[in-house]
């Protein structure tokens, strides 16, 4: 008990004012990971937005609509999960919404017989997702460790979704493919794999 009292004295002497820029210290690793992926893709790949001349803006809107929505939702989920005592079920459920929309568009695509698959650039796409997803995942882990997640698997899963979403956002401008089946297989599946890894690794990487 005496030790506890002495600990209380020590902590009290340090003061209760929270560290400055708490939000910035969460956002900075996420932004750095995103910037690294965008820059890496720009340096390694040619022909950003080249497919828009032939296919119009719609495929890009669908891809970025999905990836940016997932990116923002997963970042918000991490922020919420990093604050003990907050309900996070809504944030977790929201993470499924972009996937639900892709599933709906995929069914529509299949119904009208638009099944061009797998396209010609799927290997580049998979390689880009495989390289960039872990980079952005690492940024999400660093950001989340600054907070205090208490559900480590859930937080790991959200970090994995963030990693995948960033990779897709960075690579999508260079991708000439536009079928929903392609998007489901070569974007959504790798993102879900990264999320699964996050689920598995969360307890090890996020423990505090």
């Amino acid at each position: 008990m005496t030790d506890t009292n002495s600990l209380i004295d020590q902590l009290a002497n340090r003061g209760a004012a929270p560290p400055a820029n708490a939000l910035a210290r969460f956002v900075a690793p996420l932004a750095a990971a995103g910037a690294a992926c965008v820059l890496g893709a720009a340096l390694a790949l040619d022909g950003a937005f080249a497919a828009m001349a032939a296919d119009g803006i719609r495929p890009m809107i669908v891809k970025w609509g999905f990836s940016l929505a997932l990116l923002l939702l997963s970042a918000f989920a991490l922020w919420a999960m990093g604050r003990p005592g907050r309900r996070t079920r809504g944030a977790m459920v929201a993470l499924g919404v972009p996937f639900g929309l892709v599933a709906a568009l995929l069914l529509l695509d299949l119904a009208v017989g638009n099944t061009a698959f797998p396209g010609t650039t799927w290997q580049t796409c998979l390689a880009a997702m495989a390289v960039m997803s872990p980079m952005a995942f690492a940024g999400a882990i660093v950001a989340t460790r600054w907070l205090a997640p208490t559900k480590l698997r859930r937080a790991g899963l959200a970090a994995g979704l963030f990693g995948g979403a960033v990779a897709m956002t960075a690579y999508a401008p260079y991708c000439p493919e536009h079928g929903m089946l392609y998007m489901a297989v070569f974007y959504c599946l790798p993102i879900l794999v990264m999320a699964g890894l996050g689920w598995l690794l969360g307890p090890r990487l996020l423990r505090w």
Partner: protein
Amino acid sequence: MLDHLIAAARAGDSAAYRQFLAEAAQRIRARLARKIGADSELEDLVQDCLIAVHQKRHTLDPDRPVAPWMNAIANYKLIDHWRKRGRSPIELDDEADIAVPADTLAEVDIETLLEKLPQAQAEAIRLTHIEGLTNREAGARIGVGVSAMKLRVHRGMQRLKELADEDRL
């Protein structure tokens, strides 16, 4: 009360922060004692929680009550504590105590040995092994959960066996 104290502490009142931490320690101790009993690890765990409360204070929203935040941290640290030790109190059962050979404690003065145990463990053993209550009944009598009671009995029996062995040497 905690909310007022932390608000004052955040405004720079270190006396209020000290009072907040003392009050937090008391509440965390009571909460954890219901789950693991009042054994020697309890105070270590309370200290872990206080350090976490201090280090992660930037995750507390100023416009939200402190208690759910603090309780979530205490629960997390308790689960982490069990994970570190590679066990959960749920795994403890009466068999662990029955596994102590019957003649281990024969020919020794049980009351003398019990006096050498922490009071909570000695009381748990008196209730379950001398008075013959179940863990649930004993827990209900002294106001702790079944898991905490099992843990106290288990640790008490282990310690008792060690003491009996030392006496024989």
